[in-house]
């Protein structure tokens, strides 16, 4: 960074500098004297904010979501030097007046930031340069940074002259307004300063004037500030080793109470908890607890944890318990019905089913629960699909599958079971009598696994109705399903 003193654009006025010195600035054009009442105000707020703007023109090439994500990451870095970091288009603005003393001046702050930010940008495979400026107003710093002037302005009085050197392009006006300004002979902001503000308001709208007022510190500047994402991490060291999980539950309950308190204060809920049970001289046992719906109900979480504990076997005694939550969801709730008679409705029931499914998943683990669905496939084995319940429920309504005209069995065998032919009669332990058929199914010849079968409905001697077929390639008979 070039020292702002030597940029040739702006001197570094000392804190005690007076208005007279400002007028003697080595500027090509003398800025008009500020209005009297403003001067009084600036004098009173001499040690006002100092906003340090960082402008990243390279972010323009990213999509909107990517820009937002990158800015969030950069803001997390910028938080190292300032408590207030606000988001702007492809730019961040931090308040640094309060941290000047601590870090030892704006140069120290800049050097500190430059390295980490350049690293972060390189990780994203973006050019590591960025433009920056500091001034007493947010918009002023932004304009200076966008204009490519790495300027440092400490006092509001000097803003007008510093901004005056910027081309009107830095204002980011639309084409039409740019053209009109250009036609009026306005090239730099200092030309705008000479125009009466009520006339400007009439010609260019109040937004334009407000922007200028903000840059000069005459209008309030609300900002959208960066808030670090919440994180919850707590642990409890047991006074003695515990081998029974039942006795661990009260401790877990205490941790869950802390979590629920944390969530309630931030109006959040969570759907993913990570418990780790620590052992001596061993890796800790991890419990990954997922919820079907975000919740912050302590009893519910404890019940789920109990279910997890039931299917857990401890490799060693537990010496500590930790709970970590990283993903949060906004808290959603349903309003309770006013009248008693509505209360038995489906809304409450939905919740109980979800809880039941959560418990099932906690106990059986992973993908034991399945939903089934029709698939529009001609081959009998592929016409039914079993999918994980969680995915199945999100897939929405079933695809319209063609309705088979002939009866299909409720139960299908994984693999067709070969049948025996003896004395020209079919046997599956006992003789089989064909009731109806055949139904010819020929498909999948294009996929290599040629299916060409004649299906029959048959009856076993013990009364079961079965679905059998004759493979037309190897001329053998197979049992494929039970009508049950």
């Amino acid at each position, binding site marked *: 960074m070039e020292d702002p003193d030597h940029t040739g654009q702006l001197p570094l006025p000392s804190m005690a500098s007076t208005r007279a010195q400002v007028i003697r600035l080595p500027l090509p054009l003398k800025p008009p004297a500020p209005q009297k009442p403003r001067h009084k105000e600036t004098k009173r707020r001499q040690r006002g904010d100092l906003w340090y703007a960082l402008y990243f023109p390279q972010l323009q090439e990213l999509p909107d979501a990517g820009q937002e994500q990158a800015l969030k990451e950069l803001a997390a870095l910028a938080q190292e030097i300032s408590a207030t970091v606000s988001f702007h288009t492809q730019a961040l603005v931090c308040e640094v007046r309060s941290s000047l003393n601590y870090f030892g001046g704006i140069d120290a702050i800049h050097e500190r930031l430059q390295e980490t930010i350049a690293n972060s940008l390189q990780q994203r495979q973006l050019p590591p340069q960025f433009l920056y400026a500091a001034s007493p107003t947010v918009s002023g710093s932004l304009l200076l940074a966008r204009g490519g002037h790495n300027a440092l302005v400490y006092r509001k009085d000097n803003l007008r002259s510093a901004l005056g050197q910027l081309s009107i392009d830095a204002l980011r006006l639309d084409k039409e307004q740019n053209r009109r300004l250009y036609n009026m002979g306005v090239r730099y902001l200092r030309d705008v300063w000479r125009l009466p503000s009520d006339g400007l308001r009439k010609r260019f709208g109040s937004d334009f004037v407000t922007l200028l007022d903000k840059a000069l510190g005459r209008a309030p500047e609300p900002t959208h500030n960066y808030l670090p994402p919440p994180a919850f991490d707590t642990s409890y060291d047991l006074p003695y080793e515990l081998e029974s999980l039942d006795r661990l539950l009260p401790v877990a309950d205490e941790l869950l109470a802390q979590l629920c308190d944390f969530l309630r204060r931030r109006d959040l809920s969570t759907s993913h908890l990570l418990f780790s049970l620590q052992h001596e001289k061993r890796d800790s046992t991890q419990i990954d607890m997922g919820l079907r719906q975000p919740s912050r109900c302590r009893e519910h979480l404890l019940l789920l944890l109990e279910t997890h504990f039931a299917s857990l076997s401890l490799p060693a005694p537990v010496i500590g318990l930790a709970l970590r939550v990283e993903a949060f969801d906004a808290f959603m709730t349903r309003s309770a019905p006013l009248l008693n008679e509505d209360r038995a409705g489906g809304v409450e029931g939905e919740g109980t*089913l979800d809880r*039941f499914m959560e418990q099932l998943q906690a106990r059986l683990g992973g*993908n034991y629960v*399945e939903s*089934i669905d029709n698939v529009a496939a001609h081959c009998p084995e592929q016409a*039914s699909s*079993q999918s994980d319940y969680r995915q199945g429920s999100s897939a929405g309504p079933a695809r319209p599958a063609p309705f088979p005209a002939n*009866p299909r069995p*409720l139960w299908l065998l994984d693999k067709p079971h070969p049948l025996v032919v003896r004395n020209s009669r079919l046997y599956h332990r006992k003789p089989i009598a064909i009731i109806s058929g055949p139904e010819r199914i020929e498909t999948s010849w294009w996929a290599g696994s040629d299916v060409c079968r004649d299906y029959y409905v048959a009856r076993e001697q013990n009364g*079961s109705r079965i679905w059998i077929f004759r493979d037309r390639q190897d001329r053998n008979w197979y049992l494929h399903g039970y009508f049950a």
Partner: protein
Amino acid sequence: MANTPQAPASRRETFEPGLSRRLGPVGTGRPSGQAPSSPGKGDIDALLHGNPKLWRGCDMAGQGFHGRSTGFGQLDDILPGRGWPQSGLIELISPCWGMGELQLLLPLMRSVIEQGQWVLWISPPYLLYAPALRQVGVDTRQVLVIKPNASCKDALWSMEKALQTKNCGLVLAWQNWLPDRVLRRLQLAAESGRTLGVLFKHRDNKHSPSPIRLALKDISHGQSRRSLTEVTLIKARGNFRPLTARLNLYQHHPG
């Protein structure tokens, strides 16, 4: 007097058990022109037959109407309350799987799903085939299957939890041998969740505490195409003796 025969029927339809206190002594204070005895008898019948908790010594099967229709008229006739109970455990005994025991339950599944409840299949012995369910009018979006490789302990645990959940209308499980204690526990869970649980078994256990036990037996003639199944009511709460019904479970099949 011409309207007297219709009166009991219409009253029976609109009757609610909660009204009994307000009705006072039955058969008194009627509007003139009606015979006092016949509408009163209808009220009593409604009271006696509409309540599954009331058991009368003379109450033979086929009376009362508190059950859910099975969809098979002959089976309704032999079941107490003219149908499946509203909640509880049913045991279906068939010598081998696939003898028509699912056909017997299809009307029940349809009615459960129409009520917006779920049907849970716990470890069925074979793959459940979706096109067949769709063919018989069971919406597969309301059907959940627990994989057969779940352990017996987990399966029983799931069954108990499912029976306690009001959203599961019907829970089907295949368990051959269960101790009485477990059965009693399942029965209690079913009652608390007002759910129907069906256990499919190969062999009958005389001392089973389930309120209803049914056995299936094929009685069709050797090579005849028409299959006929005999359903024996081994035990039913509120019933004295075994009753049988002969059903054609494959009515919708051609041939």
